[in-house]
């Protein structure tokens, strides 16, 4: 907030002007934004459709230079990128939307992977169910874990929450080692896969990344639509308000604890889903995959992509997965490189690559038309009295068009629904 202390209004106006100049947005970004805003609704949808189709075709096109081959199969690399995208999408709900620093997100990922293993692998003594059923099951189990972790910890703030979640991630990893049923380092083999065969060989196999990639991208698209619906609703507003000022949110009637728990649960479910997908694709799970550095990498994906921007964090996740696969020579240097990149990013672009404030109302586009209309009344159209006299107050007229290029970009989803 800019004006804490009692300022005279003149001072406030100065501060405001400074604030406007202080927006360091690269010009290409603003130009792209206003260009996008000038497209009509169907043009925007068409463009998005093209982008989605291109995303689906990426492993088929296998573009030279971009490809991760020969060191890594490109389709499988694409699957990993998509998987990290999905993880980032889930973690973004917790960190980006509700502002809760979760360092142990890997724990949910692990719980999801183990859920898929326990109910499908021949190494497990449990009853076996079809693999696809383990996806919703993994989500349910992780939500239970998320709520069990959330109820005692979400009363904590900031640093404390970060430390406790960090501990949670480690506890899950250690449990995988200690509890005999989870088979420690030996792990589970031949974990289930979605049904379907072509010429006697399964469509979904560990060596063929393509169907896994398409499946995951489809999941991402569905999840993004649902999360978008959440964002532009009471839930999304509550999360954003909590992130901005938790006490003020509570005093304005937001049941903050309940909504923080909802964010935690949603994030956990998506982490669990991702874990189950990884278990299915690789076909093998043991206790070596769920370490703290990977958890931090997930967080890096969210921060890199831009907290709060769904598509941004998916891209962030993809980048974080892609770089070590493409540049295998990096090896153990990858953490150093990500670290340096993140530090530079925080200095020069602290909102992340694609950080932007999400829209929080279902009818933003409609209201924008209304406000624009009233702020610049056409001849013969009597101005609304209230707005007109409010406009008399100094320094407002210059802003009639601002909403068009301001924070709220894509009108994409007015009435957008699953």
């Amino acid at each position, binding site marked *: *907030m800019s*004006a*804490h*202390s*009692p*300022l*005279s*209004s003149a*001072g*406030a*106006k100065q501060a*405001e002007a400074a604030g406007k100049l202080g927006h360091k947005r690269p010009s290409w970004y603003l130009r792209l934004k206003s260009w996008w805003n000038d497209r009509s609704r169907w043009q925007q949808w068409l463009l998005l459709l093209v982008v989605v189709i291109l995303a689906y075709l990426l492993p088929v096109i296998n573009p030279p230079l971009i490809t991760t081959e020969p060191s890594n199969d490109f389709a499988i690399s694409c699957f990993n990128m998509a998987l990290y995208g999905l993880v980032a999408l889930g973690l973004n709900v917790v960190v980006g939307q509700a502002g809760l620093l979760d360092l142990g997100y890997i724990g949910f990922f692990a719980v999801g992977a183990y859920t898929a293993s326990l109910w499908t692998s021949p190494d497990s003594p449990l009853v076996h169910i079809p693999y696809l059923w383990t996806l919703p099951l993994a989500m349910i189990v992780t939500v239970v874990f998320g709520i069990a972790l959330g109820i005692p910890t979400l009363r904590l703030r900031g640093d404390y929450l970060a430390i406790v979640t960090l501990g949670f991630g480690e506890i899950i990893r250690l449990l995988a080692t200690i509890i005999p049923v989870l088979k420690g380092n030996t792990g589970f083999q031949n974990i289930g896969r979605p049904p379907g065969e072509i010429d006697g060989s399964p469509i979904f196999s560990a060596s063929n990344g393509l169907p896994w990639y398409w499946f995951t991208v489809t999941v991402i698209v569905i999840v993004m639509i649902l999360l978008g*619906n*959440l964002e532009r*609703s*009471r*839930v*999304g*507003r*509550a999360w*954003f*308000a909590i992130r*901005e*000022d938790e*006490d*003020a949110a*509570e*005093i*304005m*009637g*937001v*049941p*903050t604890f309940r909504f923080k728990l909802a964010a935690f649960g*949603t994030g956990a479910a998506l982490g669990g889903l991702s874990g189950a997908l990884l278990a299915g694709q690789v076909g093998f799970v043991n206790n070596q995959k769920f370490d703290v550095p990977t958890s931090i990498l997930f967080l890096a994906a969210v921060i890199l992509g831009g907290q709060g921007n769904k598509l941004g964090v998916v891209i962030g996740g993809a980048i974080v997965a892609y770089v070590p696969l493409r540049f295998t020579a990096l090896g153990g240097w990858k953490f150093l490189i990500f670290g340096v990149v993140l530090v530079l990013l925080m200095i020069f672009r602290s909102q992340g690559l694609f950080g932007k*404030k999400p829209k*929080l*109302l*279902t*009818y*933003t586009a*409609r*209201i*924008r038309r*209304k*406000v624009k209309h009233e702020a610049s009344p056409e001849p013969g159209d009597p101005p609304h*009295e*209230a*707005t007109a*006299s*409010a406009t008399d*107050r100094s320094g*407002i007229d210059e*802003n*009639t068009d*601002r*909403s068009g290029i*301001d*924070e709220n970009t894509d009108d994409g989803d007015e009435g957008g*629904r*699953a």
Partner: protein
Amino acid sequence: MNADANLTEVAPERDIAVAEGDTLVKVKDLSVVFGGLTALDSVSFDIRRGEILGLIGPNGAGKTTCFNAMTGVYKPSQGSVMLEGHSLLGLKKHRITRLGLARTFQNIRLFGEMTALENVAVGLDARHKSGMISAMLRTPRHYREEKQIITRGMELLEFVGIADRALDRAKDLPYGYQRRLEIARALATDPKLLCLDEPAAGFNPAEKEELMELIHTVRDEGYTILLIEHDMKLVMGVTDRIVVLEFGKKIADDIPSAIREDPAVIAAYLGQEEPDATA
């Protein structure tokens, strides 16, 4: 002229159990202690439905503390707060708000990155019921509530006179707009009692006048208001009754004309005249 601006009607939409003029909120023997400091010392007063009650006193008298104790921010060490005969003590802050006690903050606490309209939407959501499922699957209720946000939300912004910047980030708004947005956001929760904590702080005299007119209009719409203000001259004009605090104790409780003559009040305010006129 601000009075002309308020053509929109934003009358409360809810039923209130007590009749016009009857006691809506009862504060009884309320005390708040910080460490060794008794910031509020056994303060009692009633707020009647439909009135503007002024809560005045020099800086540090305990006015904000009284608000905080009423709205659940501080836990009083003693005493009770009753809304329509029901005790508010021990309730969660968001419950108290939804039961009908809304407030603004002396030091503005808007959600800075949200637009003005979104800020109001958070207030309106206090009366909404949509949860995860309803929002994700976009049930009719969700759409109904979202539509209410743009109709009533814009009405409220128009009412306080800032509708032209509904889509600007709260932190980009001029100071005066931010103060008004705080009022709109609190009104959005559809309060039975609206508590305003120095809503005109940092305003010049003309702006203060304008704001007091707005507060009057809010009352005329049917709201009950508890107004904190330490500028005594200003409150005289708008309030129906005034409670005066000094060092955490209530020293007077009367109609403005009587407060003006009250020797204890005059003593408390001696040398305090217009302390922030130059701020």
